[in-house]
């Protein structure tokens, strides 16, 4: 890739003394984000079709691969219907904010040892703060549309995003702590010997779950519960304006996978990635698409959760576990070098085994304790319902009627 601003050492982004390299990097990041999206939409539609036992797009080009391009052309030429009673400024600001907040995250995702939009030394914090801006776009859409369903959808999103940001942030701190840096490139760099998924599997699962809720995709897609609030905040948008929200959501989902890979699955790390940076790009995208596949699989398999379940799942389950994982990892990370002094410098695979083993075991113990507590809670809940039924305060649902033979 001759156009990428190539830096001499691992981890640097574009040269700040060369304004042109900044612009080139920015445009390339934008093109990568948008270019993959065209492919991703086809990829996901094909996958959901297989999950639902359909064929999916299969008319435009081989395996329907050009379907998205046809769809984009259709959306570009479609009339944008603008309701008359909208708040113009807010209405038009919303799609821009929604897309902008997602694309800005790509600035700190390390694509290969030499290709990163900007290797900020606060990269992880940048990701969290930028993704919290996406909520503003949704709010603006909900309010600017002057539609009660849009407003309700907007309110739901904020409740959901603000809540799930807490476990997202707490679980993000675990890889930051393990790497000892907030820079995304440093975090990937530190995973040369061992992926952080081994060291912090629970944090990875919490990050993915909270991220899925942050992206507002199934099973957390309450913002567009069709039967309750129609399409949620983007109900009054059509044509290209609607496409912007669509684009933001799908890109955000892919971005979540890219961030998971960066933080927990070694990013661009892979055989010969340091020697041949282009290979790093290949590993990164292979891992990201594998993650994207799993997230989509989850999305099309699990039904939507109820809003109170979603909230209590976050505050009573994810957040406490994330806090425990954080404290546990911090304690072990401090205790471990004190008990068994390690030689400084980059550890190899063998040298990093003891540390990984201890952290992995601690995570396993935590999972065991959590499952035990969950069993207790479930047993008490069953007992409570049985008592209610015995007292006659609550009647068990009537059995389903027998299916009628035709």
């Amino acid at each position: 890739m001759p156009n990428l601003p190539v830096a001499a050492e691992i981890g640097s982004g574009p040269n700040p003394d060369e304004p042109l390299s900044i612009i080139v990097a920015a445009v390339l990041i934008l093109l990568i984000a948008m270019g993959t999206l065209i492919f991703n939409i086809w990829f996901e539609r094909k996958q959901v079709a297989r999950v639902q036992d359909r064929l999916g797009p299969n008319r435009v080009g081989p395996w329907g691969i050009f379907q998205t391009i046809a769809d984009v052309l259709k959306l570009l030429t479609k009339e944008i219907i603008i309701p008359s009673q909208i708040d113009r400024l807010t209405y038009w600001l919303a799609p821009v904010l929604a897309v902008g907040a997602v694309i800005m995250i790509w600035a700190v995702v390390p694509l290969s040892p030499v290709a990163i939009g900007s290797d900020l030394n606060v990269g992880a914090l940048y990701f969290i703060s930028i993704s919290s801006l996406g909520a503003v776009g949704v709010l603006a859409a909900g309010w600017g549309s002057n539609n009660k369903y849009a407003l309700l959808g907007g309110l739901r999103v904020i409740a959901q995003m603000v809540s799930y940001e807490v476990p997202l942030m707490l679980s993000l701190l675990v890889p930051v702590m393990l790497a000892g840096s907030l820079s995304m490139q440093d975090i990937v760099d530190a995973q040369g010997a061992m992926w952080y998924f081994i060291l912090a599997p629970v944090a990875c699962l919490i990050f993915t779950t909270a991220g899925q809720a942050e992206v507002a995709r199934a099973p957390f897609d309450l913002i567009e519960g069709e039967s309750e609030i129609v399409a949620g905040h983007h109900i009054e948008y059509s044509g290209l304006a609607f496409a912007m929200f669509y684009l933001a959501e799908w890109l955000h989902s892919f971005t979540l996978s890219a961030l998971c890979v960066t933080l927990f699955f070694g990013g661009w790390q892979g055989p010969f990635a340091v020697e041949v940076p282009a290979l790093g790009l290949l590993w990164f995208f292979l891992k990201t698409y594998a993650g994207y596949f799993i997230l989509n699989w989850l999305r099309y398999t699990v039904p939507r959760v109820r809003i109170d379940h979603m909230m209590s799942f976050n505050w009573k389950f994810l957040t406490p576990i994330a806090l425990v994982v954080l404290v546990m990892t911090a304690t072990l990370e401090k205790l471990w070098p004190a008990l068994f002094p390690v030689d400084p410098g980059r550890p190899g695979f063998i040298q990093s085994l003891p540390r990984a083993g201890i952290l992995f075991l601690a995570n396993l113990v935590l999972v065991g304790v959590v499952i035990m507590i969950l069993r207790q809670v479930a047993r008490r809940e069953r007992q409570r319902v049985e008592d209610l039924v015995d007292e006659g305060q609550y009647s068990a649902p009537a059995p389903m009627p027998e299916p009628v033979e035709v």
Partner: protein
Amino acid sequence: MPINLETIAFTLFAAMCVGGGLGVAVLRNLFHAALSLLLALFGAAGLFVLLSAPFLAMVQILVYMGAIAILILFVIMLTQQVIVPEPYNRQWVLGALAALVALGALFMVIAQLGGGDAPYLQPQPLAPEVSDSGIAALGSDLVDPGRYLVPFEVAGLLLTVALVGAISIARED
């Protein structure tokens, strides 16, 4: 002042701050006023970046824009009267006087510190190529008993008390 990337960025962010602040004060539509508050806060975050404080800039975006401004927008969405018929009241003369006095005081402080030629008033390099020693130093200072451990813990305690208080007020029973 030389025209370079930093100057352009500074002008842009300063304009965002001032314009956003003005918008908060004069816009009749509360929702628009809150959006311009977001703009002003974003400009301030940009200024922090120019001042080589990226951590502070990110915290500014995360806390002020991602949490507080969203809370304000949330509350406005639930209010009945979003359009304020008259954003000015009879105290505007007093307010303008207070603003002028504050501005004068600021100018005097800056002039005493050495005017526009002072080294720290010169534009700082954009996103400096430093290690994250600044963040590391901040982190260790916050848990250093000789530095900011006590204020940090007291602030944490205060926030916890506020949180518990808010929940106990909001509880229905």
